[in-house]
Structure formats: C-alpha cells, structure tokens
C-alpha cells in the first residue's frame, strides 16, 4: 500500500530547507578581516617600493599584475639588487607554487560546486582569501561564485589601493612611529592564527602539528619558501597517514 502524505506534512517531517547561496554583498562583508589585514601591509609595500626608487605607477603595477604579498616584497629585493628579469621571475614563480593546492582544497570543502567563472575569481585566491573562504565553508555556508568574487575583489582592490597610497606617501610615512609599525606588522600573523582556530578540530590536529614542526624545520634547513612548501605538504600527508 502506498501512503500519501500531504505536502505540508512532508515539509514538516523533511530535512531543513537548504539556505540560499550567499551573494556578492555577503562576500564583501566576509572580506572585512582581509581588508583590515591587507591595507596596512600594502601601504608598507608601497612605502618600500618608493624607497628603492619605483614610481607610484610601477608600485601599483606590481600589485595589480602579481597580487602576491611575499613574492612582491621579494621582487623589491631582486629589483634593488639588479637581478636579471628572467631569473627574478623564476624565483618569484617558485615562491607562488604553493597556490596549486588551494583551489582543489577549497572545492573539496565546498562540495565540488559549479565553477563557471573560476578562471576569473581564482586570480584572487591568495593565502588570506583561501584561508578566509575555507574557514567560512567550515561553518556550513554554501559556496557561490558571486560570494567568492566579492571576497576576492575586496582583497584585490585593497591590496592595489594600499600599495598606491603607500607609494604616494613615500618612504617617510611610518618614520617615528615604530610601535604602530610593529602592531600593523602583526596583523597578518594574527589573522592566520584566528583563521586557524576557526577551522581547527580534533580530526585535523595531527595535520596541524606536523605542519608546524615541518615549517620550523624547513626554515632552519632550507629557506622561507622551502619552509612553506615543506609545512604544507608534510601536514597534508599527515592528514592522509594519521587517521
């Protein structure tokens, strides 16, 4: 016998309705920590670019075309030291290799959603945008391309804008304010630590612990880039091997 249920009874007994996917504006709101972290660091980058003799347009171009903080600060060192452009590009590309892992990890956390515009929004998938997006998905929020575009574009605009402000203000901007400069310098580490706590769970503790140890060992044995790559790969491998 087939029992027929009234539609409202089915709704009452069924699972909770799926919440609507967040839009562009929600992505902008989620970008607030990134904006707070990026702006001062981008200003410092602009100041440093000005210090080695780059114009406001050249500093802004670096942020517009590369959009990767660590690589850009190293780019200033390479430019100032007179490195060959192809050698410098190869060095900077090696530093950004870690970004290969971000997209697949994010899609896994988001449940392999539609990604029609991934070629565009993936450009904004920096360390901080990746970490913020991952932490948000862990709270149960759904993925949408509008949302991640809002998140990423805010970070991008802040980074480029902050760079221009710093380069325009020039090398003397933070002179005489060491405590403010020090506090601003801790914004990015504090952001990563807060994001780490927001995604942490008992299940991922082995991966986190191995990543921390491998990063420290990598810094002692290799370089900053070697430390980052060894930490990420060792931590992810620990997640595979330790159950």
């Amino acid at each position, binding site marked *: 016998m087939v029992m027929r249920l009234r539609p409202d009874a089915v709704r009452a007994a069924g699972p909770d309705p799926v919440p609507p996917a967040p839009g562009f504006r929600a992505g902008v709101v989620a970008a607030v920590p990134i904006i707070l972290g990026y702006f001062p660091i981008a200003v410092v980058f602009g100041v440093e670019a000005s210090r080695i003799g780059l114009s406001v347009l050249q500093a802004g171009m670096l942020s517009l075309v590369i959009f990767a903080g660590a690589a850009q600060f190293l780019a200033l060192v390479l430019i100032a030291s007179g490195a060959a452009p192809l050698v410098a590009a190869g060095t900077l590309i090696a530093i950004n290799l870690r970004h290969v892992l971000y997209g697949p*990890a994010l899609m896994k956390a988001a449940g392999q959603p539609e990604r029609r515009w991934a070629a565009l929004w993936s450009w904004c998938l920096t360390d901080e945008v990746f970490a913020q997006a991952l932490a948000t998905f862990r709270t149960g929020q759904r993925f949408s391309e509008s949302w991640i575009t809002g998140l990423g574009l805010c970070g991008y605009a802040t980074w480029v804008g902050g760079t221009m402000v710093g380069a325009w203000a020039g090398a003397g901007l933070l002179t005489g304010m060491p405590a403010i400069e020090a506090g601003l310098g801790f914004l990015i580490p504090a952001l990563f630590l807060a994001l780490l706590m927001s995604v942490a769970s008992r299940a991922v503790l082995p991966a986190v612990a191995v990543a921390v140890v491998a990063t420290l060992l990598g810094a002692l044995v290799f370089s900053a880039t070697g430390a980052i790559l060894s930490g990420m790969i060792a931590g992810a491998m620990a997640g595979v091997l330790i159950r």
Partner: protein
Amino acid sequence: MTGGEILLMAVLTGLATWAFRALPTLLMRAEPPPGGLLARFLAATGPAAIATLFVASVVPQLIPVPRDLWPLAAGTLATVAAFLPRRSVIVATLAGALVYGAVFALLSGA
C-alpha cells in the same frame, strides 16, 4: 632593472601565479571518492596550509636571531583569548595587533 624589465618580470610572475591558482580548480572536475587518499589529502591541506602560513609569518622573529619575543607572545595570547568567547576573526585579529603594538611600545619606550 629598467622599467620594461620590471614589467616583464611582473607579467611572467603574474601569468604563472594565475595558472597555479586557476588551473587546478578548472581541471579537477570530479569529486574524489570519500575516504580515499586524495579526499583525505585535500581535507588536511587547508588547516595544514593555514598553520604553515601562521608559523612562516612569525618565523623571521624567531630564526636566526630571536627578537621582540614578548610582543609576539602577548600578541599571540591576545589573539587566542579574544577569539575564544565569540569566535570572531575580526575581533581576534585586531586585539592581537593592538596588544602586540602596546607591548612593543611599553618595552621599547616608543
């Protein structure tokens, strides 16, 4: 470097960076089998990457010559303490930076 060489370096780096960020997302279309090696690897990658980035961002203060350890310890503790009550990333980030700068100012007399 000349202006043209700086532009060349930036464009090459930017193109490679875009490829690193976009191509894996565009090419990996299928869901890896739940519980499989790839699924577990990707699930662990996120937290491991964020932990790595935190450590890498403070390592220059620890190696090779430790410096400003008290501001670092205070800023780290303040970030954790501010996060726990409401699990707010914004509040924790700002509290950590504020305490770091305050302790730095106290110790250096700045």
